[in-house]
């Protein structure tokens, strides 16, 4: 579903991604983990071309994302993206946040967009928050609205860049539950996360990055008990012991 081939990317003369290749089969959930500065955000952002690449190829559902001939706006409707800092539109209510893109991009009628938006918000436990502005919502609620907003475009893949890192601990679960439900429904996902328990539980594969390279890929059961590389062992001993 997602195919990343030999991607390189630099900011100035700082090489941030070095020859990264990764396949994500349909309905798989990949956890992207690694130390801060490893290039996880940069990589996940190249998948919907929020970040351009220097070379290499990325295809999502058969569409070559960085090809000049691709209409990136159409391609992006197929790729949901959830940010660490939510990035909700503060001047719109929760429901308006969710209906804006379906109406303006897909040309849905207001009625159709609202019907779908209400379904999505309700399915994420936000049935009493349709008319709330973001600044009236908790972090966990805001992130769930952001997930609903992405899902409203009916994407075939979902990308999450540290979706729970900006949340108070007691709100992490509600957001992880939402992602867990998507996994159960067979959504193809890449999740950058520091939630190791979550990664272990729902992910089909762990991809460990350091210094712009994929250092190790393994099934969670293997990765968390017996990683092959020293780099991954060091990382795990740091995050699991604290």
């Amino acid at each position, binding site marked *: 579903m997602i195919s990343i081939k030999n991607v390189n990317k630099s900011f100035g003369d700082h090489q941030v991604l070095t020859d990264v290749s990764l396949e994500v089969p349909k309905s798989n959930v990949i956890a992207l983990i690694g130390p801060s500065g490893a290039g996880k955000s940069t990589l996940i952002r190249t998948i*919907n071309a929020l970040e351009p690449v220097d070379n290499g190829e990325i295809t999502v559902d058969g569409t070559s994302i960085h090809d000049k001939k691709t209409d990136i*706006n159409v391609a992006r409707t197929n790729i949901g993206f959830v*940010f660490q800092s939510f*990035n909700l*539109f503060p001047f719109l209510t929760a429901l308006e946040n969710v209906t804006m893109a379906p109406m303006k*991009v897909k040309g849905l009628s207001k009625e159709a967009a609202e019907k779908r938006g209400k379904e999505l918000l309700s399915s994420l436990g936000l049935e009493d928050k349709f008319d709330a502005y973001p*600044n009236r919502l908790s972090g966990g609620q805001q992130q769930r609205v952001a997930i609903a907003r992405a899902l409203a475009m009916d994407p075939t893949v979902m990308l999450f860049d540290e979706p729970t890192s900006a949340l108070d601990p007691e709100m992490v679960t509600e957001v992880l539950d939402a992602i867990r439900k998507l996994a159960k429904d067979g959504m193809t996902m890449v999740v950058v996360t520091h939630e190791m328990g979550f990664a272990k539980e729902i992910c089909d594969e762990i991809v460990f990055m350091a210094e712009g390279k994929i250092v190790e890929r393994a099934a969670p059961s293997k990765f968390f008990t017996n990683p092959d590389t020293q780099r991954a062992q060091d990382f795990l001993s740091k995050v699991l012991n604290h």
Partner: protein
Amino acid sequence: MYQYDWSVISRNMDVFIDGALKTLEISAISILLAIPIGILFGLGRISKNKIIFIISSTYIEIIRGVPLLVLLMWIFYVLGQFFSLGSYWGSIVGLALFAGAFIAEIVRSGIQGVPKGQMEAARSLGMSHTKAMTHIILPQAFRRVLPPLASQFIMLIKDSSLVSVIAATDLTLNAKNLVATSFRSIEVWTFVALVYFIMTFSLSLILRYFEKRLLKSET
């Protein structure tokens, strides 16, 4: 001892009212022209197109670097050689160009003040740059620019007093003429200051009221 004679005010009230109305008229037309100028050049200032950027920056920098008084003189005496603007339209063009440059900077900083994540979120949903601008960025920029824009409107009323130097009829010119015939400079200028203050302060209250009403729904 100076003998105050405040009756000069009441006897010439029509002169003050005429002048104040002219001041408001010139300011209002100038602002109405300055807003589209400001939006256009403000957008130009953040344009990726080099030529548009350079034109916008040049305009803004020149206007910000020239005193309004000199700009008005220049329009009246230099541009006046080629276009017969007269003092009325010369004043309006001068004020509009002047306020336009400042509004352009307000618009630019309003747009750039919207967090980067807003554009990214909009684009990640499949909106084109233009759609994201129209539906997500500009509405937020608009809310941000309201207070500085209001100050700019008020400033313009005050700045408009300079048009008297190119003989445009306004409150200040009427006052000057009245002083020249009545020799009552203390009374006249005191009253003129009061009238300017009343005009700007009421406008300030009105704008504040609209700003509150507009933003009320979102908090």
